[in-house]
């Protein structure tokens, strides 16, 4: 297995997407998406259902269904990712680009131990013995703060809580030390207290590895906490793009403003009808 491609310059983007267009027989799902992500930076991709945000990530991973056709380009360290053969894409997937999914329980195979499933990702790219890969798995689990990692590699997914399972998924993504992490709604299925922990963990992991991150979510509040840059998508089109500060403090487009207004806030005081607490009283 070759080392990561040489990085031309430190400020060159890790991922550079240009005019990405994804079409299914039933219609266009992404129409002209363009963005860059630099090392150690996070791009937040926000949108409601049907905005094409998840399709964008699958296109980058080369995991779109066969019937989808893509045009445009997605360059990773300058190398085109689109239209590559599955075999060549496979060497990049899981090694230099890793993905974390929404529902950790269904994203892990119930028939294999978590250690096996993490080690499998390691061996697919780095080779080595099963025992060595298992040690790597335990290390990765330790890095994402799973208590007693060495003891828990032999446990099955159903033996973990929801938050711990997502840590397993993150450990699996980290095990080959990727340059790009794609997180597709990684906290949506989790309870709020767990969500906060996982967001902290992701930020910490990124700080440590300086990986670029594409963070996909429908939740503007989550995106505001983790992103350096934000792309707002709707019906497959990019509505607005900018730094997190610009998007949240001075949104230019009506749709962005509407989304922000619709996002429920803890400190919002809404006018409610008065309850009827006294007899016959109004």
């Amino acid at each position, binding site marked *: 297995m070759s080392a990561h491609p040489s990085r031309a310059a430190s400020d060159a983007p890790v991922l550079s997407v240009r005019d990405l267009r994804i079409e299914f027989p039933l219609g266009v799902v992404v129409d002209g998406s363009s963005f860059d992500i630099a090392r150690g930076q996070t791009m937040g991709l926000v949108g409601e259902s049907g905005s094409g945000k998840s399709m964008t990530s699958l296109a980058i*991973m080369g995991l779109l269904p066969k019937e989808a056709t893509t045009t445009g380009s997605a360059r990773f360290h300058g190398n085109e990712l689109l239209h590559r053969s599955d075999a060549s894409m496979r060497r990049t997937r899981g090694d230099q680009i890793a993905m974390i999914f929404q529902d950790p329980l*269904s994203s892990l195979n119930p*028939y294999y131990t978590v250690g096996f499933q993490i080690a499998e990702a390691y061996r*697919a*790219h780095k080779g080595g013995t099963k025992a060595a890969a298992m040690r790597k798995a335990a290390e990765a689990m330790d890095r994402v703060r799973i208590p007693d990692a060495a003891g828990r590699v032999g446990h*099955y997914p*159903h*033996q973990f809580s929801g938050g711990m399972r997502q840590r397993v*998924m993150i450990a699996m993504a980290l095990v080959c030390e990727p340059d790009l992490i794609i997180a597709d709604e990684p906290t949506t299925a989790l309870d709020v207290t767990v969500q906060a922990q996982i967001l902290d963990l992701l930020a910490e992991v990124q700080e440590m590895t300086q990986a670029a991150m594409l963070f996909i979510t429908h939740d503007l509040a989550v995106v505001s906490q983790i992103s350096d840059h934000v792309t707002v998508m709707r019906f497959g089109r990019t509505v607005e793009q900018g730094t997190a500060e610009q998007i949240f403090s001075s949104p230019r487009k009506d749709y962005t403003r509407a989304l922000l207004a619709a996002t429920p806030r803890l400190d919002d005081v809404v006018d409610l009808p008065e309850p009827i607490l006294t007899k016959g009283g109004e």
Partner: protein
Amino acid sequence: MAIYLVKRLFAALIIMLLVVFFTFVIFFQLSPDPAASICGQTCTPERIEAIRDQLGLNEPFFTQFFTFLAAIFVGRDYGSGASVVHCNAPCIGYSFQTNQDVLQGIVDRLPVSVTIAVGAAVLWLLSGVAAGVISAVKEGTWWDKGAMMFALAGISLPNYFVALVLQYLLVVQLQWLPFPTVVPFTDSPVQWFQAYLMPWMVLALMYASMYARLTRTNVIDTMGENFMRTARAKGLGRSAVLIRHGLRPSLTPIVTLLGVDFATLLGGALITETVFGLNGVGRYAYDAIAVNDQPVIMGVTLVAAFAVIIANIVVDLLYRVLDPRVRVSTS
């Protein structure tokens, strides 16, 4: 685990008892007088009465039922004095038409039925699962459509029809096989194999068709699972994704099915054995039905039910081993 096993065995015992009871009721209530069948056509009323007496058929229903039950554990004597016939425990009946202990009759014929069942099971498992997996992977292609059409035919066509067509083709027309004659394996392995080949194929066709369809559905369902996408996202090769992550969840339910189908065949493949002249448990029952030899029909029914009940327990235990979600409880 031990508690679970005890519970299951206890439940099995209850079910077995119910099976015995209902089988007994059916034969007691619905069938023609067994004494008359034993006696034959030239028979006097006195002789019938004597036979009824010897078989205990004049006793009340529950007396007969408990005599039958007790015989399973302690054996039983039919009649008394010089004409006494003893049936050793476990006794599930005595055939006065063949003058044989029914259980012995079944045990004698079991090797043939086991041979048929094992050979057919190997054949249908390999071909059915392979066809199902290929169909699933090539979903919607001509291979898939063709295989599923063939499977539908395999399920729909009656056994005896397939048997006759196969015999006509392979023996009469193409002459690839001699007319099957059963010989012991040790005498001539080739001839032994030739005798069993067609029964295996006939039974396997039906089961393979069912297994192919089920495997196909399971594999297609599994391919849609999120963990398959994870496996691909890790950068695993196509075959590793399919074989390691796809087949294990798809085939575990097949194991369950296999156990029960196999056990069902131990109770005899009535039609196949008869068509091919194999003297297995199914043929034993077939012959008994022809002459209304009730103890044999009942005995085979009970043994067949017993095999299925035991197989169910074995399969459930196996499932607990194969599926970690059942094996390892949440900690």
